[in-house]
């Protein structure tokens, strides 16, 4: 059997540890180590890639529905605008802020912000229309200080700076995963030219040869933005999006 004995401290050891404890107590009394941010008077500095409320740019949207397809929470619904185009609407009651939509958008029409502190009074209000997604939501800002978390060795400390953080970061445009549309079963192509009509980048072309009674179809991989509009519309479902 092994017996655990009391540590063998000398008098000087005991004095040293007691002095260190008194020192810490004195330091905490004058400069307390407090890692709580005093929101809303202070605001923590979030990274530029923070997944907050999304903004939408209709100019860049090509109505490809990719955002609504990829949304795991089914929070994005496409609604028809007066122009006949389809634009996303977002239900904040469902959104889990995964930002798959931002990542998947081939045109970079969705962008992230650091805004996360929006209050909705009703469930209906949480359903934001396309128009409401264009401008950032109005929030009341009382913060004058930005708090940075500084980690040195094992200690965490706060660094407070007198400034107002910009909540809409200027991030480089998302390039996404370059995809290209390809036809996987050319024999089953009807040559209905729907893909040609729907393509916005002019990548798909169909040329009818009246004499030979053939239609020449082609997809220009260079021009194709990989939006998937043709894939969605193909009546024979023979187009696929693949990585470039």
């Amino acid at each position: 059997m092994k017996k655990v004995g009391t540590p063998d401290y000398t008098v000087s050891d005991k004095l040293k540890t007691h002095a260190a404890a008194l020192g810490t107590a004195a330091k905490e009394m004058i400069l307390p180590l407090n890692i709580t941010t005093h929101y809303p008077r202070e605001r923590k500095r979030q990274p530029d890639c923070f997944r907050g409320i999304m903004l939408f740019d209709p100019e860049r949207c090509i109505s490809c529905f990719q955002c609504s397809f990829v949304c795991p929470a089914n929070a994005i619904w496409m609604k028809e605008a007066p122009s006949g185009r389809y634009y996303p609407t977002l239900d904040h009651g469902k959104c889990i802020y995964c930002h798959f939509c931002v990542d998947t958008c081939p045109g970079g029409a969705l962008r992230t912000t650091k805004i996360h502190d929006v209050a909705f009074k009703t469930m209906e209000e949480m359903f934001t229309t396309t128009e409401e997604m264009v401008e950032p939501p109005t929030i009341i800002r009382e913060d004058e200080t930005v708090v940075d978390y500084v980690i040195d060795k094992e200690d965490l400390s706060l660094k407070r700076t007198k400034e107002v953080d910009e909540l809409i970061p200027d991030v480089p445009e998302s390039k996404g995963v370059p995809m290209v549309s390809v036809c996987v079963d050319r024999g089953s192509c009807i040559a209905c030219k729907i893909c040609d009509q729907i393509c916005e980048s002019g990548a798909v072309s169909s040329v009818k040869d009246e004499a030979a009674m053939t239609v020449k179809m082609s997809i220009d991989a260079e021009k194709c933005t990989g939006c998937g509009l043709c894939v969605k519309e193909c009546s024979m479902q023979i187009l696929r999006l693949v990585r470039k």
Partner: protein
Amino acid sequence: MMKMAAETIVGEAEWEVKIPKKKFKDKLFFENLRDVVIDTKMCSRCLTCVSICPSGLIVNEADNVDFPNYDTKCLDCGACVRVCPRYDYQPKSGLGDYIEFTAGKSKRFKGQDGAMGTEFIMSAIDMGLIDRGLFVDRNELWQTDVFHARNPDQLHRLPLGGTKYVFANVIPELKKAVMLSKVGVGVVGTPCMVSGVRKLQEAFPVFKEKVKIVVGLFCTENFHYDEVSKYLEEKGVDFSKLVKTDIMKGKFVATMTDKEVKFKVSQLSSILPTGCNVCTDFTAVESDVSVGSVGSAPGFSTTVVRTEVAKKVWDYIKEKGNVEVGEGKIPELDYLIGHKKAREANIPGYEPKKEEGEGAGE
């Protein structure tokens, strides 16, 4: 896998599609179809064109197949005339080629007779040949609906078997099934639908690859729901009590729970669809296996195994002991085959070739 596909396909993303010749050069393809098939009352309403039309705007109206606003909406791709069995009509008749002429009675399923159509499709699912089978189901009012079966258990709670004598939306559903299926699809249909499926397979490899087994039904004619239901109600048929309908020895027999209504089939000619008037195919010559009531003892289905695929399924059914094999009597089909062959006279501008006189039983 997707990446592999990209590497093989990207870079040579050009292909050519042949489009068919127009009979009327200055008109759209749908106008060609309308002038050649629909307006001449040749259309069987097999709905193959409805299934393939990329705009999805060809519709089956109460009285015929139509394409509203075709002048602006038709994409002029020619898919409809490529697949229409009646556009370039080559009437089939007789008994056709077969490997085995027999009769069977399914031990698993109950139908009008031997339920061999159901048995063939379900056995093909059991074999792993297909993962989806299309059946025509009906409701209490005998309105038809197409049912996608993926498991034999699904069939026990449905009144699937039995002749309906009413057209169904089989081929548009077949296209959906082909798009969804990973292995293959099996389908049961009337001779005009079988011809439609074969046309689709000829034109589009995706159908050739996916549609593995086509069960044809013996068919003298088939009616449209609105017309037949009105007619039968006038004759005193109560749909809520109707158990089965059949054509026996020239008489239409509607069996109800309490009584039977019988009348001569010839009386139905007033509501005979014009498409059936030019149909000469009784036995579904182009199918993999044809099934019907005529030509075997009551309770059995006459089974005409035509292709190797169907033969494999038939051997599987026998091996599993799911069928009671009966005897098929070819001469019993003679009358109806001849009856339908006589309709060749109704086809505008058709002159029968001399060799084609292969009657049944030869």
